[in-house]
């Protein structure tokens, strides 16, 4: 994985000599599902209550990312664990009982927990389609809504391939920024002061790691290699490949199952990748209408 050849989206957006691109690496293999990230995010960013329902989905009563949910911890209870291809060499064991669990003795159940967040894509559809310039690329390469400019057109909502950003509803007297698109800012106010975003700061296991994207990609690759060496072949990275459909995410993940199990799209592509073709076809269609209507004036009067 190269770390130097990546185009910094902040430079592309016109920043001169910006600081290194910042992001998250969320290692779900060490997430304990404590939801400290959800709470810290709400507290720091003043994100309003997002419903107090029991959803019947394990310990997840948050549901999904949205206007008032900028971190979301997913809980998946899996009845069967993919068998690890370990080879029994028949060696005597010298460790404490239980310290080296025999795969055969493991219960046929596992938890998957993962803290989801805005991906801060290299090629961000929300930012591309925003008609007011409210969404912008920061000097840290992240994507942030300027809440005093957004007019709530809602275009970013269906544009996001991950279903992250949302227009906030509710009563204007009780909730702030009603009618405005909202999402994670990667704690723009904190990182500008050299601090760690609230979620990463609060994470007790360092499942959420904050840092320079280049370094995080390396760290993610190292962690993947070590898990594979330790007999966890189902470990995989998500969002760490700069050649994926969004040009790589600023927030990447280490997952223990297929992305869609966690509610991620398996192969997200920024919709604006096809935009030139769309404009070409729309222009052709408009031309067809103009010429066709002109042609309609040839012929009989009635």
């Amino acid at each position: 994985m190269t770390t130097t050849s990546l185009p910094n989206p902040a430079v592309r957006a016109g920043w001169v000599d910006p600081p290194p691109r910042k992001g998250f690496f969320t290692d779900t293999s060490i997430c304990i599902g404590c939801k400290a990230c959800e709470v810290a995010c709400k507290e720091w960013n003043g994100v309003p209550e997002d419903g107090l329902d029991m959803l019947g989905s394990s310990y997840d009563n948050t549901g999904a990312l949205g206007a008032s949910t900028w971190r979301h911890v997913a809980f998946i209870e899996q009845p069967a664990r993919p068998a690890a291809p370990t080879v029994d060499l028949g060696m005597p064991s010298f460790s404490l009982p239980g310290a080296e669990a025999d795969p055969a003795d493991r219960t046929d159940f596992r938890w998957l927990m993962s803290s989801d967040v805005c991906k801060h894509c290299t090629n961000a559809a929300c930012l591309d389609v925003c008609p007011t310039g409210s969404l912008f690329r920061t000097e840290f390469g992240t994507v942030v809504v300027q809440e005093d400019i957004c007019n709530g057109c809602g275009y970013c909502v269906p544009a996001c391939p991950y279903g992250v950003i949302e227009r906030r509803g509710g009563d204007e007297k009780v909730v702030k920024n009603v009618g405005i698109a909202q999402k994670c800012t990667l704690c723009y106010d904190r990182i500008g002061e050299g601090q760690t975003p609230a979620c990463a700061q609060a994470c007790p296991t360092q499942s959420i790691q904050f840092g320079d994207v280049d370094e995080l990609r390396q760290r993610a690759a190292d962690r993947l290699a070590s898990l594979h060496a330790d007999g966890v072949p189902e470990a995989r990275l998500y969002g760490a490949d700069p050649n994926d459909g969004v040009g790589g995410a600023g927030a990447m993940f280490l997952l223990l199952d297929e992305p869609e199990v966690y509610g991620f799209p398996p192969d997200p592509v920024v919709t604006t990748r096809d935009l030139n073709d769309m404009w070409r076809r729309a222009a052709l269609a408009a031309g067809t209408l103009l010429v066709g209507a002109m042609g309609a004036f040839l012929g009989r009067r009635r």
Partner: protein
Amino acid sequence: MTTLPEDLTKATAGTGSRRSGGVEVRAEKGRGAPRRGRRGGGERKMVPDATFTSYYGRPVVKASPWAADIPAYLFLGGVAGGSSVLAAGAELTGRNSLRRVGRLGALVGISVSFAALVHDLGRPMRFVNMLRVAKHTSPMSVGTWILTGYGPLAGLAGAAEIVKFVPNLPPAVTKLAAVAGRPAGWGAALLGPAVASYTAVLLADTATPSWHEAYRELPFVFVGSAAAASGGLGLLGSSLADSGPARRLAFGGAAVELVAEQLMESSMGLTAEPLHQGTAGRLMRASKILTVAGALAAAAGYRSRALSAAGGAALLLGSVCTRFGVFHAGQQSAKDPKYTVVPQRERLKAAGRQEADR
């Protein structure tokens, strides 16, 4: 915060299944399943049943927060754009009744469109923020600028008609309106087709499966629908002696729309399914019936004002159904993770095969 979608009731926990995470759902062919082609008859499947996994059946992407304002705008913008072209042609060829209905239709259509667009904003008072940037990557920004050019031109051309009905205006005003109305009408005619077609990009440039996957043919469906509707309005409002161009535009537009819609569905794969289900399915069926009937009545009605008007009305209604149908199909496709996950999985599988072949 999301609430559980109805789909969860259909989903079954993946106990010991191939992929045991989350919730595994077998994508089934709905009752309103598509039948491919009109000659095909039987129950041919568009794509094989797909097994996929999701997180408790919840959507992956979010549906747009847009309400009926937006599909109503798609329709009215189309009527306005097409009507401006008809009106300019009628003005140049001396078809007075067709010019009048075209200009008035464009004025009313674009005025109501503008109101709908502002009303749909989360912060309507901030509409003007649309004008602080111009971005070709944002179809809404491009559309705003197209409308900013088109609106005043269509308005001026429409005003030139209205002043004729207002008694006791100073002669200078009527003269000015008549003089300015002509070039304004020509300008509106040049921009009108863009108003009608860019809305297809507006929908397609999203992660909403049934909108994005339709991007190749949707502009042609939309301009066809706009031509049928504006031709229909022309038939409703012009005298028989002036109606020829409106009749041919209506018929041609209906034909383009119906053909492009069929092509669109065949290129959309699984994401064509929502066009046949629920509200969207009913609207798309109604659209086909109304468009076919309207086009036939328009073609046959060149001796009957009543038949022409009936055909025109049917085409207008058909266009409404097309726009609302496409809109609802997209919203539905965003709410069901199947339409996001399955096509992406298939894409990955195909890419993997290609990799292996190399």
